[in-house]
């Protein structure tokens, strides 16, 4: 039977014994693909006791059934593994051109386990996978590695996914870079590949991708492109690109994070100096795009490094302005650009590094780090020399960088437990978010995110909701007007967006084309239509959302089993409960424990989790057909079954 939507193959690659086994995708179809497929494979194949850096841990690199098709923005790739920072679930997602190329090379997903004896890379071409020596590549920056592999494969149209020195040196803030500028950054995924001694994957494919109903698919794709265009997403993001969400935002209300979250408002002149338009107009070169994407939110930027040399880089985002700007109290746009570009080249997560460095600056300021521990660096807020030097040290795990490479939470535990009070993290993952005290639907979604902390799961923007019809709003869980939303409505909304985002990440398309960013863009029914026409499977939007809920529940179970997470893991750092925003439009904004507990209760109720422990109940798992997962949790003593309680 021809594979429609999928190309039909999952490759299991064991780097320890260099074996490669190809398995049909058919048995995994219920997991859709991308993040959904990865969640199932990780729960089933990674032993609970496995260290993230061990041979037993697996990395799942997966596309979805819409990847590489005419469905808008169909270039997304999921990279998932046991999380180096939280020891729970880890999943990153990246655009570019690699994912469609992997499918055209004949593979829906790669599952990588084991540890190579010496550094290797994978060469994939039209159904054939080779494990090759990475002699000559190990130690290269990500951009140099990309160029070297293209030269080596004598194919400049090949696509490269690689790690930099950060991943090679097992820095837990290391990411994976695709196409020289797109980063998959969550969960220390670069270090996981580094521990496997896998430097890169180069892929080239000339095979075709079939869909079940080509004419219907063409018609639905046309409607989807038109809908995205009408939504205003294209006009907005092609102008502001990935900088659209920079504080103070278009409406002037977004809260900053200043000096390691000491405050939520920054000096006006500093805000002006680092306004997104400063970068777009002063440093932007041209818009760039991912595969088959009408939005083209990415952009090439020009900057001058410390030596004054002009350089170009892609992948600059709003959170970079925050984490190398207000977070470390730096208002020099050149440093923000240089530090962000350096992170990409060294294979480091910008947000995690900004967060670690801010913790170090504050620890120095409070006398917890001495000058000698900082190798004589001038650790005053925003110091350009210190920031650049620390990034090199982090990537090489040298000097203070060896401490910072583990992220602020682990670094604080190693240095002095008193510094944990300003190690800004959730579940052990660096906190990278603005608006934590001002936007509760955002903050809740960030805090309960299965991958540690992050807005790319259930965090949603209440301001999107007026764009939905009242019927659509009800389907999202909002029966009230958004401005009247109480904690239970916010909990319902976060739970709904978690399921929806799980679905989007499993299909292999970009969330920027969906309700996640704009209520007039693609919703569940649009995606269900494309999925049906692609795969031939008769399934309604409701069932696809249920499958999204399964992904969410598997990731949650993984966190409970592997990292012992519960209700206490879903709290933001204590600083956000202690220091209100001092002035400006958000003056006085502060989290309170009562309010947070009410938000968690609302969310757990929506998800049918146990309110006291935060664990899953038998009901929430049987609702989405995960009885086997319930049995595993029960065996571990971490399932709540109200019917068995006295």
């Amino acid at each position, binding site marked *: 039977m021809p594979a429609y939507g999928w190309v039909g193959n999952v490759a299991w690659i064991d780097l320890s014994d260099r074996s490669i086994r190809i398995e049909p995708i058919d048995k995994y179809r219920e997991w859709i693909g991308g993040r959904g497929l990865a969640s199932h494979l990780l729960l089933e194949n990674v032993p609970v006791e496995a260290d993230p850096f061990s041979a037993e841990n697996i990395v799942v690199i997966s596309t979805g059934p819409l990847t*590489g098709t*005419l469905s808008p923005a169909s270039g997304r790739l999921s990279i998932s593994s046991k999380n180096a920072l939280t020891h729970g679930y880890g999943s990153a997602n990246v655009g570019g051109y690699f994912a469609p190329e992997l499918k055209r090379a004949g593979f829906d997903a790669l599952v990588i386990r084991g540890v190579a004896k010496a550094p290797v890379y994978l060469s994939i071409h039209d159904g054939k996978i080779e494990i090759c020596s990475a002699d000559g590549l190990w130690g290269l920056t990500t951009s140099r590695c990309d160029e070297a592999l293209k030269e080596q494969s004598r194919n400049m149209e090949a696509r490269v996914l690689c790690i930099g020195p950060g991943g090679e040196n097992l820095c837990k803030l290391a990411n994976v870079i695709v196409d020289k500028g797109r980063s998959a950054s969550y969960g220390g995924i670069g270090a996981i590949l580094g521990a496997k001694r896998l430097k890169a994957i180069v892929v080239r494919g*000339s095979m*075709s991708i079939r869909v079940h109903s*080509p004419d219907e698919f*063409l018609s639905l794709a*046309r409607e989807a492109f038109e809908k995205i265009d009408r939504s205003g997403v*294209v006009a907005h993001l092609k102008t502001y690109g990935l900088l659209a969400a920079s504080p103070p935002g278009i409406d002037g209300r977004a809260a900053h994070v200043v000096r390691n979250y000491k405050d939520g408002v920054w000096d006006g002149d500093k805000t002006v100096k680092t306004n997104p338009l400063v970068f777009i107009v002063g440093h932007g070169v041209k818009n760039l795009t991912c595969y*088959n994407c009408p939005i083209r939110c990415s952009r090439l930027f020009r900057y001058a490094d410390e030596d004054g040399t002009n350089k170009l880089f*892609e992948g600059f985002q709003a959170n970079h302005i925050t984490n190398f700007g207000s977070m470390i109290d730096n208002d020099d746009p050149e440093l923000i650009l240089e530090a962000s570009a350096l992170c990409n080249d060294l294979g480091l997560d910008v947000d995690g590094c900004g967060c670690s460095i801010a913790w170090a600056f504050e620890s120095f300021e409070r006398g917890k780090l001495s000058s000698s521990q900082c190798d004589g660096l001038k650790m005053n807020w925003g110091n350009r020399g210190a920031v650049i030097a620390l990034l090199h040290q982090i990537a090489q795990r040298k000097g203070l960088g060896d401490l910072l490479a583990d992220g602020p939470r682990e670094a604080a535990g190693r240095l002095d437990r008193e510094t944990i009070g300003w190690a800004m993290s959730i579940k052990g993952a660096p906190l990278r978010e603005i608006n934590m005290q001002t936007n509760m639907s955002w903050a809740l979604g960030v805090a309960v995110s299965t991958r540690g902390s992050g807005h790319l799961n259930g965090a949603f923007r209440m301001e999107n909701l007026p764009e939905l019809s009242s019927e659509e709003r009800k389907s999202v869980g909002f029966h009230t007007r958004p401005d009247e939303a109480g904690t239970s409505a916010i909990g319902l909304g976060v739970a709904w967006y978690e399921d929806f985002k799980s679905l989007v990440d499993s299909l292999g398309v970009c969330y920027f084309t969906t309700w996640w960013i704009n209520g007039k863009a693609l919703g569940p029914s649009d995606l269900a239509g494309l999925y049906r026409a692609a795969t031939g499977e008769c399934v309604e939007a409701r069932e696809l959302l249920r499958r999204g809920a399964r992904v969410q529940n598997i990731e949650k179970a993984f966190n409970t089993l592997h990292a012992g997470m519960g209700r206490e893991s879903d709290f933001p750092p204590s600083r956000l409960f202690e220091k209100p925003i001092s002035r400006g439009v958000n003056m006085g904004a502060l989290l309170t424990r009562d309010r947070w507990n009410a938000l968690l209760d609302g969310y757990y109720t929506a998800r049918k989790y146990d309110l006291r422990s935060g664990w899953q109940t038998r009901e929430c798992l049987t609702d989405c057909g995960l009885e086997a997962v319930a049995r595993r949790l029960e065996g571990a003593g971490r399932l709540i079954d109200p019917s068995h309680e006295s």
Partner: protein
Amino acid sequence: MKERKSDMERACKEMRLGVAVDVEKCNGCRTCELVCSLHLSGMFDPYSSAIRIVRPDVHGPISSEIRDGCDLCSGLSIPYCVEFCPTDAVFLTRVP
């Protein structure tokens, strides 16, 4: 259908109409290749597309190629590649 296609191809040749790409406007998303290959082969396969967008360096210049086989999507007033291009980089023109 085949007859109509060849009629269209002949008409295009007589009118010396063809598709062209303004590479300055093109962002390299390759949507044109996808929709063209779906039209010509019923599958997503850039190699069976009559329009090719090539960008060896993801940050570098773009070049394009129109191959034999383009029927200007016979029967349609606007070829798919022109209709779907998000930057209006693909257009109908008189060819030399």
